């Protein structure tokens, strides 16, 4: 697991090293991968990371908004992706993500691996 996480971290920060490098996502996000299902309500098309907002309805009916960090805009452009494409059509989306480490104090933040949409199409945004 340790080596696997190193590989993932290496891939992520190589992926994020397009211009001049920045910190590793491993400095914020853990190794565990979970799945969330919710509705994407918005996206910040900014650098050095984009941010996707996913509303996840809990069993008691309350809604928690997760902030999902993702690739920089230049990388998303490489895949022809836009903010509108990632937000989708308002139907539920399943997100495979790496949650932030507990010690960061940011319980509902995560790094995005894959988004799968209601019609089955998907975007793999970082190496799984």
């Amino acid at each position: 697991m340790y080596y696997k996480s190193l590989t993932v971290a290496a891939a992520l920060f190589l992926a994020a090293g397009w211009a001049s490098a920045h910190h590793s996502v491993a400095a914020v996000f853990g190794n565990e991968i979970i799945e969330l299902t919710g509705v994407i309500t918005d996206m910040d098309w900014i650098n050095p990371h984009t941010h996707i907002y996913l509303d996840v309805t809990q069993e008691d009916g309350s809604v928690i908004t997760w902030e999902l960090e993702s690739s920089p805009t230049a990388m998303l452009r490489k895949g022809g992706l836009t903010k509108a494409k990632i937000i989708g059509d308002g139907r539920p989306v399943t997100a495979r993500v790496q949650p932030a480490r507990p010690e960061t104090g940011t319980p509902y933040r995560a790094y995005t691996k894959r988004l799968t949409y209601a019609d089955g199409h998907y975007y793999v945004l970082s190496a799984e």
Partner: protein
Amino acid sequence: MNIRVSRYLVTVVASLWVVPTIAAEAPLAADGHPDLSGTWDNGSGVDFVEAVFDGDSVCLRGCAAGPQPTQRGDRPTYKPEYMAKVADLEERQVDEDTVLRCFSPGLPRIGPPDKIVQTPNEIIFLYDDYTGNYFRVVPMDGRPHRIDVEPGFLGDAIGWWEDDTLVVESVNFNDDTWLTDDGSFHTTDLKVIERISRDGDTLQWLATAHDPEILAEPWELRPRIAQLTDDEILEAPPCIDRDLDHIVENLHHDNVR
């Protein structure tokens, strides 16, 4: 039409096909120098991302055997007395590397230009970096460097031609940037020489950083290649870091550019 004439016509037609190809391999500007104008895709530093498409689905990473990023090793060599400082800065990259706070990466860390606009008297470099859009104006008329202005992240450039290679010399840098992401600091005496040449639709960018007070030798960066593209550069989205306050490890990573 006899066979001899037919062969002649075939030769002429073949020549007509060949001529434009030759012209495309060596485009020249009106002044006879190579024309470097164009938008040049160097992958925005993400040239190792090879998107795989499957209908409406897209996989950006891990689905194709794309070109591998350069491994660690493309690094300047410091004089022994400065190695401890480099190591210390590398350890504290999260606190010290201004790029993490969306400052300009500076030269040569920014890499080759994403777009070149060439005129006889000046050449304009445009950059679509994740930290923002940048420009450099390279006078070609023989004027000296401007050193009466505030030092900058990308310095003051002047250029000239050496045969078919554009040579750009830049000085007057601030010392707020690093040469790479691993603590490779520089002084305000930094001088960067870029050598840019074109072969058809391929641009080669070579750069050497000179900082003789601290570097054991001039640092020659690995050659960078860019391809002519019709995918125009765009307005850079704002660069706003949201992670630094949440970092729990002082991790850094290699500069693949």
